[in-house]
């Protein structure tokens, strides 16, 4: 895949590789030299089966783990050289990033705004606007542990963008959610793109990728096999359904 070396795109990923050492299986290449770019106001989807390398890629991009080789830049901040700059520029949301149960919804958003370096004098106004935007006014003063799953999802998304990042990463955000809550999350992702943010979104649910993503990268065994718009993928394969397209790339022609 061609990558703009100037790094002007908000997200530039270049030959990112991650290997792990496993006692029984030896060295595992979880991510194997992947590259891609994301544009402004775009929802970029990473579509892959479980264990394809989606989460590892997103964790490297979010500086939770370091790459074995290769690099990525988020708004010009290098994930290895300037991890704090990267984390200031982006919000990270996944099914495994939980909320502090003993803080209230408002305290949670406030805390994440502060710790992600949002200007102190604007924190309260930002919290108020997020509370209103996500419709959590009624339970803003309630501890997170007492909220329903749907309410927690809203607070979780609000805390992800508490510091107003231009890039937001969603790692399989609808896992374990019922249809209604999943739709709420999808709506929130849509709205974030409308705000002009770059959204990177990983999923293994075809319908979700079809519905939400401007461009889709099919990832399998740590490699990107294809990356294009849905229309482009259809044109390249001559298939209509994303599931068929996915299977074609992953299994090869029947």
């Amino acid at each position, binding site marked *: 895949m061609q990558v703009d070396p100037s790094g002007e795109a908000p997200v530039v990923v270049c030959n990112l590789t*991650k*290997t*792990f*050492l496993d006692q029984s299986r030896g*060295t595992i290449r979880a991510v194997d030299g992947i590259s891609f770019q994301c544009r402004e106001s775009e929802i970029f989807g990473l579509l892959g089966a479980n264990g394809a390398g989606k989460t590892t890629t997103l964790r490297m991009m*979010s*500086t*939770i*783990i*370091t790459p*074995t080789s290769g690099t990525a830049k988020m708004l010009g901040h290098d*994930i*290895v050289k300037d*991890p*704090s700059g990267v*984390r*200031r520029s982006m*919000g*990270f949301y*996944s099914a*495994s*990033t*939980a*909320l*502090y*149960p*003993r*803080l209230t919804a408002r*305290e949670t958003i406030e*805390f*994440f705004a*502060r*710790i*992600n*370096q949002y200007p102190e004098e604007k924190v309260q106004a930002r919290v108020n606007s997020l509370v209103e935007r996500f419709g959590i006014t009624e339970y803003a003063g309630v*501890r997170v542990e007492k909220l329903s799953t749907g309410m927690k999802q809203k607070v979780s998304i609000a805390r992800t963008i508490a*510091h107003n990042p231009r890039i937001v990463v969603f790692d399989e955000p609808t896992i374990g959610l019922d249809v209604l809550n999943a739709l709420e999350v999808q709506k929130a992702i849509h709205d974030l793109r409308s705000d002009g943010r770059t959204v990177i979104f990983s999923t293994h649910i075809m319908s979700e990728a079809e519905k939400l993503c401007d461009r889709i990268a099919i990832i399998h065994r740590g490699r990107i096999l294809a990356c294009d718009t849905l229309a482009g993928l259809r044109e390249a394969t001559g298939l209509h359904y994303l599931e068929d397209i996915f299977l074609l790339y992953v299994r090869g022609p029947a």
Partner: protein
Amino acid sequence: MNWKDIRTLYLRELRSALRERGIVVYSIIIPVVLYPLLIWLVYSALTYASGQAAELKSHIVLRNLPVAHFALRRALQAERTIEIEDSENPDHDIRAGTLDLIVDFVQVQDAPPLAEGNVGVHLTYDASRDESATAKARFKRVLDRYRDRFIEREAAKLGVTRTQLQGFRVEELNVSSNSEMGRFVLGLLLPVMLVIMLAMGAIYPAIDTTAGERENGTWETMMTTATSRENILVAKYLYVSTMSFVAGCLNVMAMMFTMRSNIALLGGPSGLTFQVPLASIPVIVAGAALLALFIAAGMMILASFARTFKEGQSLVSPFMVAFVFPLVFIQSPSQEFTTRVALIPVVNVAMMFRQAIGGYFDWKPMAITIAMEIFFVTAALKIATTLVEREDFMMDTSGGAFRRFLKRWMRRNAEGEGPIAG
């Protein structure tokens, strides 16, 4: 380090902690109410036990009571709790538990007749039975009164004073003041309890802020924030140390208050004053702070290998035992605070507390103690800092196993094992 971030993280930890029942109970409530509660329980138990004992009759046999001392028999009969028995085989009866005390009156052999009716008294009792010991105490109380009157009367007959008649008389005089006695008692109790409470105050927060966060899934959330791992570590460390220190201080205050107001209830000397010299307070505070920092570091390092709160408890509990165990050695009042003792962690601080409470300041071992504690705290922090730089540690790829982590550590140069981004 960014102190603004550390403050934000620290306040978040404190706020969460004060809303967690377990932490509030272990770090605040137990240190405050433990002593009043214990004293109340002991007092109630003692009152109950003495009430029960007061109802019991002591069965006594008098053997060979001289005629001159029949008045003693009458004095004993006047006692509501003493029953004078006749027994054919008192030695058997006392072993069988049907008799509590045998009193034998014996002639003093080869002694000059200082006074008419001069006799010796042998008491036979069963120390393994509380009733028998009580009978002995009751009899001695009556006997002492009777004996005092008898000696006074005989001395008057001989035209001498009671002191002259008694001859080799022993009198005791305690030169220590009530406050010195109070400090001695405090010196024995307070250091041990302070160390235990410092550890108790730290254990729950240390597990909650490490293993608890992993279990709740907030560990990864925290790692996606813009602050550095170092700031997160420092904030958590200060938070656990604070909880430990607060528990220790609250406990000392509760202990002083309780002892001051309740010691008389327990049968202790009521005039004792439990006051720590003002000059000792900085030493105690500094020692408690250093120990809190040491405990917090040790517990956090161990607990952070755990994936769940339960795992954390099983990893930290042995540390707690190992931490408290050396205190056994300072239970002897004669244990001195030497430079060698000052090299033993925990024991050295406890001995420093004891000295300070007693109002003594032996600066050489104290300086060694402080230096040793600073060394241990620095070493523990160095280990903690090294750990948070390890990706396999932070991401729990060692599966919460300390042994597995060490194995991986040995192979640190292997591919994909580098430190993670700060």
